[in-house]
């Protein structure tokens, strides 16, 4: 009889394989629809768009961010830029003020209240039919906006279009690992787009129809992930979100483990808590693949990583314990520590093949994501950083996010 932990383990492996196969089948179904344009896109008409850049202490990057917007291949009189200083304590306001002379730029200064309040200030002043946000640590490709707008032109039911976010100028292992991860993210987001099941409209340059905010209200705090909350709200109301894979945005990513940990803790905490807030959506078929695939998939990945981590910690503890006992029994004996190279001892239990399969499908996702974003070296070796960095670190922010959720939510339940 298999033990209960083994049964749980195999169920989680089954579900993880299911998720990856689901993505792969979606890819096979839609592969001909994935178009990466090289030429300049021409629209029948160029609707007016407002892009808001909320900033809090972004003196190092905001100037470059604004210049990237000014260089967008989009008629100047159709593009409004709102620069919002959310109570920065550095020179951000000074830098923003320099742009006040541009006819299509409006600048705002407000007391610090969080990103969603800065965006809502922009919404209050919004006069155009399309609205987008660009984080002040990101830079847009000059063709990105027009490519995004072509999706709205093609389908009047499309309510929001998310771009492909990639890592700007990765320098160290942590950033290179994220580069591979973002490439994978582009592939998964495109597939979720086909499924109508995108759960985040990323801060860097997602463009919305104004109708979204007119109908559903302004941004909310959303557990510090307002770009996730608005996507959940849109999905709940059956508003279509697309992904434009050839609209590139380059973002600065955390360069240290600590900063990455803090960012991901916020994201995962946001996922867990927004999902709890929208729990009435999960598994309800009227909300489509978002309710039946995206949200359960997120829950499965958190459970799998948490469970696997527990299992690995347990096995590692067990191994160390047996090594200590061994040391007490026979002392340091190098004679018995022979390297066993006999292929007989290679583990061939069934889950090994399945885990290899999951890894292969993830590698495929990364490589295809790179292809979609026209990366020069689609076989770049930053894949080698991705697996160890994320396998080692992800369990920590996942478990901490679960812990924070339990601890902070407890009082509210009483």
């Amino acid at each position, binding site marked *: 009889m298999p033990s209960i932990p083994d049964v749980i383990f195999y169920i989680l492996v089954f579900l993880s394989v299911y998720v990856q196969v689901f993505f792969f089948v979606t890819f096979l179904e839609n592969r001909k629809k994935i178009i990466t344009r090289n030429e300049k896109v021409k629209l029948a008409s160029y609707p007016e768009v407002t892009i808001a850049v909320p900033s809090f202490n972004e003196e190092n990057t905001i100037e470059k961010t604004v210049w990237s917007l000014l260089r967008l291949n989009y008629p100047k009189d159709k593009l409004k830029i709102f620069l919002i200083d959310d109570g920065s304590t550095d020179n951000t306001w000074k830098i923003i003020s320099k742009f006040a002379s541009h006819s299509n730029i409006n600048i705002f200064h407000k007391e610090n209240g969080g990103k969603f309040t800065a965006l809502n200030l922009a919404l209050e002043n919004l006069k155009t039919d399309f609205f987008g946000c660009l984080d002040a640590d990101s830079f847009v490709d000059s063709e990105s906006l027009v490519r995004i707008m072509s999706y709205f032109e093609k389908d009047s039911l499309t309510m929001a279009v998310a771009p492909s976010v990639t890592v700007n100028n990765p320098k160290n292992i942590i950033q290179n690992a994220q580069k591979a991860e973002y490439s994978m993210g582009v592939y998964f987001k495109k597939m979720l787009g086909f499924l109508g099941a995108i759960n985040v409209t990323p801060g860097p340059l997602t463009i919305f129809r104004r109708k979204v905010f007119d109908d559903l209200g302004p941004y909310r705090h959303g557990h510090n992930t307002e770009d996730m909350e608005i996507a959940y709200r849109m999905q709940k109301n059956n508003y279509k979100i697309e992904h434009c894979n050839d609209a590139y945005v380059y973002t600065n990513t955390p360069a240290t483990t600590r900063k990455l940990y803090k960012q991901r803790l916020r994201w995962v905490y946001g996922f867990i808590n927004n999902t709890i807030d929208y729990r009435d959506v999960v598994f309800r078929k009227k909300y489509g693949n978002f309710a039946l695939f995206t949200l359960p998939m997120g829950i499965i990945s958190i459970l799998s990583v948490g469970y696997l981590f527990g299992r690995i910690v347990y096995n590692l503890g067990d191994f160390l314990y047996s090594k200590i006992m061994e040391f007490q029994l026979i002392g340091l*004996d190098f004679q018995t520590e022979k390297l066993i190279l006999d292929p007989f001892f290679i583990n061939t239990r069934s889950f090994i*093949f399945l885990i290899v399969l999951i890894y292969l499908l993830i590698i495929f996702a990364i490589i295809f994501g790179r292809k979609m974003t026209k990366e020069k070296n689609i076989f770049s070796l930053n894949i080698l950083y991705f697996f160890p960095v994320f396998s080692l670190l992800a369990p920590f922010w996942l478990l901490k996010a679960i812990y924070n959720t339990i601890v902070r939510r407890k009082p509210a339940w009483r």
Partner: protein
Amino acid sequence: MNNNLDWKKYLIVFLITTGLFLTAVYLSNYFGDKKIDQLKTIQDKIAIDILSSETQFSLLSELSCKNISDSVFSSELGELGNKLEWSQENLGATEEVSYLKKYYSLLQIKDYLLTKKISARCGTKSAFILYFYTTAENCTLCEDESLILSTLRSKYPELRVYSFDYSTDLSAVTSMLQIYKIKDTVLPALVIDDEVLSGFHSLEDLEARIKESFKLQEAKPSEANKK
């Protein structure tokens, strides 16, 4: 819009995933069977070697000891033991593995008897340890003792350790247990030079006994020569 739920796709993906799962199980069984085959091959080879040694011994018993090749034990039987132990842990205690284990126990006993005979007649240097353990229940002392014995084995290549699982359902093993009056309450148990040691014994303790055992066997032929 979102309401384009494609149930067929959910079902197809489920079937594909199930198919992949079954393929993985099939592959696992396939390689498991290959390993069992490998074990059988090693066992057959050892069986032939032992039989050959026995025959050789009978043929040449009247003649000089020089021509008798050393018994096969050493590396091959040890390697088989390791692989069997690994198989039991990783392939599960299948019928085939327990069958192979019985066969292995039998080979060990035969090798033990043969080597003992050769040693007695020709005065070759060997020390024997018969080791009884159990896998039926969680016996941490057995695991510790096994570790100590494998350390000793690599330290003294001439040392022969024959290990027997108490729960092996084989009359030859049961006879051994009866001869040395070993009960499952005293496991792990060791037999060194016909002396039964029950319970756990440390590395130092066993090492001292082995050294003694070596000397004992070295002394015998010279005494005989004097006579």
